[in-house]
């Protein structure tokens, strides 16, 4: 949804940007505890946002575990203590790199983003970016810009058509589609600056900010698809963003330079979700990017059998030339590490079976049945032995 709405908005703003140089409207930052006057268009925007929030809360996609929620909320409060009470965070189980901030103070953070952040500092930078949209009231600025320009009718028509609904000219529909949370590049640059400043002031290492984009750039390039990651669709070019953030990081004086990276804390908090999120990522079938991401996780987190297991799963699912051997190597590495999932034996057996390696397949399936005697698919795997 966000990708489509994003495309619509970037198209419209891109066209209008050709005619008239864009300047940021002079809108005051939102103040802690502030709510818009009920008679204003901004109040309407908030009501629509609160409706989206209620739907999201009931969707069953939101992680409710207190520890990881507290982790993300603590980062937000560290970034902006004065707005801590105003911001509500929802961690949404979706395997894409994305986050979005709504004008009423609720923020979606997708699990694909948390998975890809190598440490707390990188996550803090992205959360700060989203807070920047909130502080600077970008949604209402976006709405007023669209409403007051000649392109408004076109915007409504295309946005609603792309979303598969008829013409809708009200603010609530656009909020529901996410169209007003897909910002112009100028707003994105401003949010980048705010995010960088906040993470830097909060004591996080500013050198981590460009690293998350460098990692995503690798994933995008590996996929060969410029829209492989939703975040790239409207945001400033990743190369530009990396250069800008590197420059900003270099300019931070040593006396004010934070050093907190938080890699261990991030790994510890996210570890219970690692298998679930990696499985979700493979289900997304963007395997070239997933391969880059998994190898990066292995490099950064060291010996984690889950990581090698899912790398093996990736090769088994993809099934390109040479992948069977890569899968066998990854499963074998996983099984050599403490705490390897029993399923690695089963998958190893499946690859050998497909390759016609009967003896190896039999050994792997038997090992699975020994390791998981109460597995719910015990009878099925046992039947594989009869078929070998």
């Amino acid at each position, binding site marked *: 949804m966000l990708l489509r709405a994003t495309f619509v908005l970037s198209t419209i703003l891109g066209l209008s940007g050709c005619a008239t140089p864009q300047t940021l409207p002079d809108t005051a930052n939102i103040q802690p505890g502030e709510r818009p006057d009920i008679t204003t268009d901004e109040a309407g925007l908030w009501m629509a946002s609160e409706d989206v929030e209620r739907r999201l809360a009931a*969707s069953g*996609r939101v992680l409710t575990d207190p520890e990881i929620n507290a982790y993300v909320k603590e980062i937000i409060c560290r970034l902006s203590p004065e707005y801590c009470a105003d911001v509500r965070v929802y961690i949404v189980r979706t395997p894409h790199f994305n986050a979005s901030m709504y004008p009423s103070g609720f923020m979606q953070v997708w699990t694909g983003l948390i998975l890809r952040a190598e440490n707390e500092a990188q996550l803090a930078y992205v959360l700060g970016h989203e807070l920047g949209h909130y502080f600077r009231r970008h949604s209402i600025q976006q709405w007023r810009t669209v409403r007051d320009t000649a392109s408004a009718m076109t915007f409504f028509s295309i946005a609603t058509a792309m979303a598969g609904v008829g013409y809708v000219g009200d603010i609530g529909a656009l909020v529901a*589609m996410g169209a007003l949370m897909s910002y112009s590049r100028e707003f994105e640059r401003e949010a980048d600056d705010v995010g960088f400043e906040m993470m830097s002031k909060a004591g996080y290492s500013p050198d981590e900010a460009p690293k998350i984009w460098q990692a995503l750039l690798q994933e995008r390039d590996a996929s060969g698809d410029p*829209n492989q990651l939703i975040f790239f669709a409207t945001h400033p070019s990743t190369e530009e963003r990396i250069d800008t953030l590197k420059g900003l990081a270099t300019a931070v004086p040593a006396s004010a330079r934070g050093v907190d990276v938080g890699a261990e804390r991030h790994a510890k908090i996210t570890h219970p979700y690692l298998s679930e999120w990696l499985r979700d990522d493979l289900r*997304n*079938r963007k395997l070239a990017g997933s391969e880059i991401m998994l190898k990066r996780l292995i490099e950064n987190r060291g010996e984690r059998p889950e990581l090698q297991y899912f790398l093996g799963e990736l090769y088994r*699912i993809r099934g390109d030339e040479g992948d069977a051997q890569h899968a066998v190597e990854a499963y074998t590495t996983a099984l050599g590490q403490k705490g390897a999932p029993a399923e690695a034996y089963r998958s190893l057996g499946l690859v050998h079976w*497909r390759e016609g390696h009967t003896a190896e397949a039999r050994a792997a399936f038997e090992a699975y049945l020994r390791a998981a005697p109460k597995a719910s*698919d015990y009878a*099925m795997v046992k039947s594989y032995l009869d078929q070998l």
Partner: protein
Amino acid sequence: MKTRASISIIVLLLSACTHYTLLEPQRYQVSEVYSVEPQIQWNHAKQGAVELWTVDGPLLQAVRLVNGVNEGDVLFPVFGQDKKLPQFRAGMSATEVQEFVVDSMTASGAADVSSSNLRPFQFGALPGFRFEMQFLSADGLEFEGIAAGATSEEKLYLILYTGTRSHYFDKYKSDVERMLQSIQTRA
């Protein structure tokens, strides 16, 4: 998310404007490969290789019969999305077919899809498999499901029964179980 939900409803459950006919509880030839006894009257619609049976509406409960999935085919095409979808590969084991089904449902908009109890199942005369599923709709409604299938001549034949955990799955579960036991494959 509303858009994605709409897509999933259209594709996974077939659209509300699909033309239905009444299917009587007498032996019915689903494909060239097998026939079943439907047990009760179902509203019946067909779209491509997928048949849909329902009594109370596909948003509440449905049997989908997917006939002859070929190498490289997807289970539920997601129109208007450029995302890569899971593809069937000839020679898949039952474990891999289970993975294919679960991943396809996820790609179609179902959330938190899990499966269990993969076990051998006699699909008529064909050695097949079955398993159970649980998932959430895009709006958070809890569903349960049963999947049973087999491959014949490198094509996948799949019967998928899903319904809301509250009431509608259980309402026709026993009829579906009897229907699965009634499968007859051609010699």
